[in-house]
């Protein structure tokens, strides 16, 4: 028996797994219309590679990965591309995002699916396959798997952790997947292990899923992979918490598990790795739990792009009393406003919520500093202090008290006797700090630009004065010469001198240009020339990247 380590805090919300984990996964029927968002992963959104009117095959790439941290998206069914335009998506912001809409023809004509013999293939080719098959983390973070499955660290990877904890209440998609398709999950783990070459493979499953653990144990026989049953305690499925539970190691703040020789992936992701590599099938469907206030809670294997409204219908539709829908689990999920939004790779659960199942929070009371939040926080933060600083907009203090180590698991809000929506305050503070940092950066740039402009104006003023003095001197000299000789016209002489001076100036300029070409910088040349200035363009690109990253995180 492996020794388990403990992470601090944690809570025991009512599990509600029974509702949806009794029935096997059911295949969902093909919807008429599928809407596939191009942004279904962390990183750059995919670039559309089809046009409106194109015929596509099932599994055909319709959006290509854009850059390293990105992934492809695919047609979930054969049919016709009818639109490429912004559409409602399941995102906490509620903002629409670019999607490709496909009218399914019902013929289900597949692309040619070619297995890849990963054992004899170049690991980079396997990773390329994952990227182009749109394989991303299905635990919710949707981080591209080809980026994660790269043992870049010089020390190598010691432990590959498979996350089958599924600690959020209500969700049972990983549970059913492990029960029913354990062998295929393990095939996926083999590919991951082949890419990462870890010393050990640990599969963490909470003890409220004995059937899944047993199935995985049976499937792992002879592989050396170890199924580790962990106590049910939210958020044991948090990446850093599970790693601590299984290995005793703490991922340093602001770093990734790979920095301590660990990689952590969801078991559902392992399944899609297997389908992509051994069957040539891209990620066009996923298992989604439909539960809560519906007639028949159950898991469905549903095509990406299926409208959430149709997914709710699969479970017999919402019972009366449903007031809203939650995407994901009740601890970290978000409310969905628009049921036309499609299923994405990130959505593992749709909960139909009624006041009976999810009573609305009573109005918040003041914080009484009881410290229950600090006792519950798995990151060992002091949530009451973070709340105090966020609430009073004392953002520097909030940051100093490690606000950015908060994983927004919601354990603090869950236990708060004053019913304060703590996580909302932390999100607010985080976004305010991000905005402020951004503004600071822009202000810094503006200040620099202003100073350079001042320098340029000063220099021009001096040049002008010098030119004027030169001209005056030349005129005076000509006058003096004319007076001396008494022959020549003084005005013509002045002109001549001015021309002479201009020629000299042009010469000097030419020399300066030549010096510039050689790379010798003079202060005057630091003046940015509009957007052509490479420094400024870079800064602009960086700040844009920061803003987009921020969007996907929130």
């Amino acid at each position: 028996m492996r020794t388990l380590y403990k992470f601090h805090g944690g809570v025991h919300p009512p599990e509600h797994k029974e509702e949806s984990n009794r029935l096997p996964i059911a295949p969902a029927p093909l919807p008429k219309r599928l809407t596939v968002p191009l942004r279904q992963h962390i990183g750059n959104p995919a670039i559309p590679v089809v046009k409106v009117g194109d015929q596509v095959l099932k599994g055909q790439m319709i959006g290509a990965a854009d850059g390293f941290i990105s992934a492809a998206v695919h047609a979930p069914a054969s049919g016709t591309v009818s639109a490429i335009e912004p559409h409602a998506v399941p995102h906490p912001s509620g903002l629409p995002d670019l999607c490709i809409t496909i009218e399914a023809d019902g013929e289900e004509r597949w692309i040619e699916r070619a297995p890849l013999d990963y054992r004899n293939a170049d690991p980079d080719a396997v990773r390329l396959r994952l990227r182009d098959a749109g394989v991303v983390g299905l635990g919710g973070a949707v981080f591209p798997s080809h980026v994660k499955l790269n043992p870049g660290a010089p020390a190598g990877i010691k432990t590959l952790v498979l996350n089958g904890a599924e600690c959020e209440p209500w969700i049972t998609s990983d549970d059913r997947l492990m029960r029913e398709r354990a062998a295929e999950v393990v095939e996926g783990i083999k590919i991951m292990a082949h890419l990462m070459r870890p010393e050990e493979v640990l599969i963490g499953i909470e003890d409220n899923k004995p059937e899944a653990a047993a199935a995985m144990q049976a499937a792992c026989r002879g592989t050396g992979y170890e199924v580790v049953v962990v106590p049910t305690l939210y958020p044991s499925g948090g990446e850093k918490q599970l790693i601590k539970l299984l290995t005793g190691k703490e991922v340093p703040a602001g770093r990734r598990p790979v920095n301590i020789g660990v990689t952590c992936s969801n078991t559902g992701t392992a399944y899609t790795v297997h389908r992509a590599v051994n069957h040539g099938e891209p990620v066009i469907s996923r298992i989604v739990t439909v539960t809560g206030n519906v007639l028949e809670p159950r898991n469905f294997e549903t095509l990406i792009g299926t409208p959430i409204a149709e997914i709710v219908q699969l479970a017999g539709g919402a019972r009366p009393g449903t007031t809203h829908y939650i995407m994901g689990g009740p601890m970290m999920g978000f409310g969905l406003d628009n049921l036309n939004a499609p299923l994405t790779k990130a959505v593992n659960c749709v909960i139909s919520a009624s006041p009976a199942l999810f009573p609305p929070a009573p109005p918040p009371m003041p914080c009484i500093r009881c410290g229950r939040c600090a006792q519950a926080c798995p990151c060992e933060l002091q949530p009451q202090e973070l709340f105090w600083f966020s609430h009073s907009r004392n953002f520097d203090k909030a940051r100093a008290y490690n606000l950015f180590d908060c994983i927004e698991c919601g354990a603090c809000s869950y236990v708060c006797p004053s019913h304060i929506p703590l996580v909302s305050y932390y999100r607010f503070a985080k976004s305010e700090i991000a905005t402020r940092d951004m503004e600071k950066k822009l202000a810094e740039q503006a200040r620099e630009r202003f100073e350079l402009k001042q320098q340029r104006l000063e220099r021009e003023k001096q040049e002008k004065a010098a030119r004027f003095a030169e001209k005056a001197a030349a005129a005076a000299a000509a006058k003096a010469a004319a007076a001396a000789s008494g022959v020549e016209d003084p005005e013509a002489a002045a002109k001549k001198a001015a021309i002479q001076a201009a020629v000299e100036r042009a010469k000097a300029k030419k020399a300066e240009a030549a010096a510039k070409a050689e790379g010798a910088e003079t202060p005057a040349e630091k003046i940015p020339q509009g957007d052509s200035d490479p420094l400024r363009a870079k800064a602009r690109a960086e700040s844009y990247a920061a803003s987009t990253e921020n969007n996907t995180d929130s």
Partner: protein
Amino acid sequence: MSAPHVLTPDRSVSTIMLMVLGALVPAICAYYYFFGPAILISLALASVTAIAAEAAMLRLRKYPLKFFLFDGSALLTAWLLALSIPPMAPWWLIVAGTAFAIIVAKHLYGGLGNNLFNPAMVGFAVLMISFPAFMTQWPAPLMLSQHPVGFTEALQYYFSGTLSGVKLDAVTMATPLDTLKTQLQLQHAVSDVQQMPIFGAFGGKGSEIIAAMYLLGGLFLWQKRIITWHIPVSFLATLILIAAVFYGIDGSRYASPLFHLFTGGAMLGAFFIATDYVTSPTTPRGKLIFGAGVGLLEYLIRVFGGYPDGIAFSVLIMNAAVPLIDAYTQPRVFGHNTKAE
């Protein structure tokens, strides 16, 4: 709609306050049994005053009455104050103390959750400084009293200031801590002093049982995870430690640690007053420092200071240090200062 969408069902501010009030009930019963019904009048007066003052302040501050009035926090302040001051006193004493606690110490500092100082102890300190004579008139335990005061008689005293037939002196007595201090000044040894009838097995007669009931209530709060062990343990351990040191130096001049545990406000202070969420540190190390500070000051004040007991002042002094203690005792955050870094 923001996550989390579920909240813990078993605990709100008012259920916490009610549980703390409930934990005081055994001690109140013992109080009633040993010292007569006056304490009930005291508690009732304090409760009514607290609710009225709370309502008035909430209205002035334009807070929703219905929502805040019955959170139980004002009632708790009232009870803690009533249990801290002598229960045979004119009605206005407890009323003034409670009103000051709620109006000044609580609401003028920002109301629930924002007050720096423990309101009940501020109320106590104000009464102690303003009306020291009333604050030292403690009723004698019933079994030692020649004239046990009944309910109507106590009520009469509260509102008229006189007792029928007897003088107040006949029903009051110096407290064990007070008696010990006076007798020690008269060069009596502790062991001789403790032979006097007012002393019980290890504390004061009757009052030691009340202290034991506070301990019981405190253990209940700890078991229900309303309070953590840190403050009571460091408080009482410090008190025991320093009392043991002095007891060891000169047992005839300094009382035993057990005596100090079970007299005065030690148990009430350790489990119910020093553990007040709002005015105590939130970090585990901070709680230990805070508890130790209160324990130390408590001993110094009650043994060497001018007041018979030191709970109120030691708690108030340590309250002032809470923001500093919290700032310097922040625990390590997950993933910080790891070996791998």
